[in-house]
């Protein structure tokens, strides 16, 4: 061993015995680092990490909320659609029923009107026939009496006679007509 190394070894003493000035500086250096990190920088980043976590979880929550809303809206729509279908079916049914009754009513009304018209027609015809028969009977009477008067030269103006003769004549005519039938 050279004298130099011997000297060094003597001066170095035990490397496990800490020199005090270095100890103090070491403490100061560490405390500075700890102070900055603990008081400012780590709370800073913790806040941001928390914000990030919230942003991510908030996003998930928002998505979940949107999904549930969409689900409920869909169900609402489905319910509304089913209701509308039901309503439409009901309306159709009602309309059919209404239509049927309307048709039935109209038919009854038509029937009634037809019968009325027919009845009125019959009555008219009857009346016409009667008046025509009446008129015919009178005209025929007149004609016959006129003719007979001319033929016999005798006035058959006498009403009583006239009627009797005419009636007899007409009865004969009717009998002939019936016989001919």
């Amino acid at each position: 061993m050279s004298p130099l190394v011997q000297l060094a070894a003597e001066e170095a003493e035990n490397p496990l015995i800490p020199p005090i000035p270095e100890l103090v500086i070491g403490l100061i250096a560490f405390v500075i680092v700890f102070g900055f990190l603990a008081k400012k920088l780590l709370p800073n980043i913790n806040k941001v990490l928390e914000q990030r976590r919230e942003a991510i979880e908030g996003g998930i929550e928002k998505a979940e909320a949107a999904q549930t809303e969409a689900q409920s809206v869909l169900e609402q729509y489905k319910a509304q659609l089913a209701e509308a279908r039901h309503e439409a079916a009901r309306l159709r049914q009602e309309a059919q029923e209404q239509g049927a009754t309307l048709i039935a009513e109209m038919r009854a009304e038509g029937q009634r009107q037809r019968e009325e018209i027919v009845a009125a027609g019959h009555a008219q015809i009857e009346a016409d026939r009667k008046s025509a028969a009446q008129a015919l009977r009178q005209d025929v009477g007149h004609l016959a009496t006129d003719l007979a008067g001319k033929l016999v030269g005798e006035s058959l103006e006498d009403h009583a006679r006239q009627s009797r003769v005419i009636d007899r004549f007409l009865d004969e005519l009717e009998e002939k007509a019936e016989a001919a039938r």
Partner: protein
Amino acid sequence: MSADPTQTLAFDTSCHLFGNDGCGFDTVAPGLHSFLFKPLWGGADSNVYFNKTMLLALLGSIIVIGFFWAAFARPKVVPGKLQMVAEAGYDFVRRGVVYETIGKKEGEKYVPLVVSLFFFIWMMNLWSIIPIAQFPVTAIISYPAALAAIVYILWVSLTFKRHGFVGAFKNFTGYDKSLGAVLPLSMTIELFSNLLVRPFTHAVRLFANMFAGHTLLLLFTVASWYMLNGVGIAYSGVSFVMVLVMTAFELFIQAVQAYVFVLLTCSFIQGALAESH
């Protein structure tokens, strides 16, 4: 030979294998003197001085704060690249170390301390392979000791706060009636192990790893230069390859030791908070 315990360079550059002056490797080999630095300010005799390791420690603090300041001073919900990297580191320590050992509920309070410890120690270790600096600050026992002391005070006071005096004593001694006759012996060993050995090993584990790592790097670097003479060049090449290999290995060890330190810290805190059994 111009070298002295507080030299600027780690060794005498004029000494070579097969050299004319016939100087041996023991004159340049790294040793305890490689861990001593001439004060940049203040006297070597007094206790008030400022040297390279102090400068590196303070610079390291500034770098750690600067990195996290750039990343977290104005953090965004949608992170940029730097913020993403810093967040990954932060999250690794928070989830991978604190939540894993102490649990989320109890551990939340200690996250800033453990995160600071991890990145501070890592930076101090990293100085080992940063050009020009090239010295792991944690290879000076004072720095690991200071950190281990903080952790020690924390977990011991936590134990007293949580369990009271008798409970804390039981916690430290691993009191367990079922041990019977062995109990006094077991309690003595546990007390000794927990209160004395634990903080010591906590600090020394980090210190020794960095100390040994730096010594190895120095050894191969110095040897490469020492053998760079005549036929020694071939040996020198091998040694230089070892420098590269050891540098990569150190890069790994630095992170691992920072991780181990904070993992132990959490395990001590967890032990202090745990219910006594």
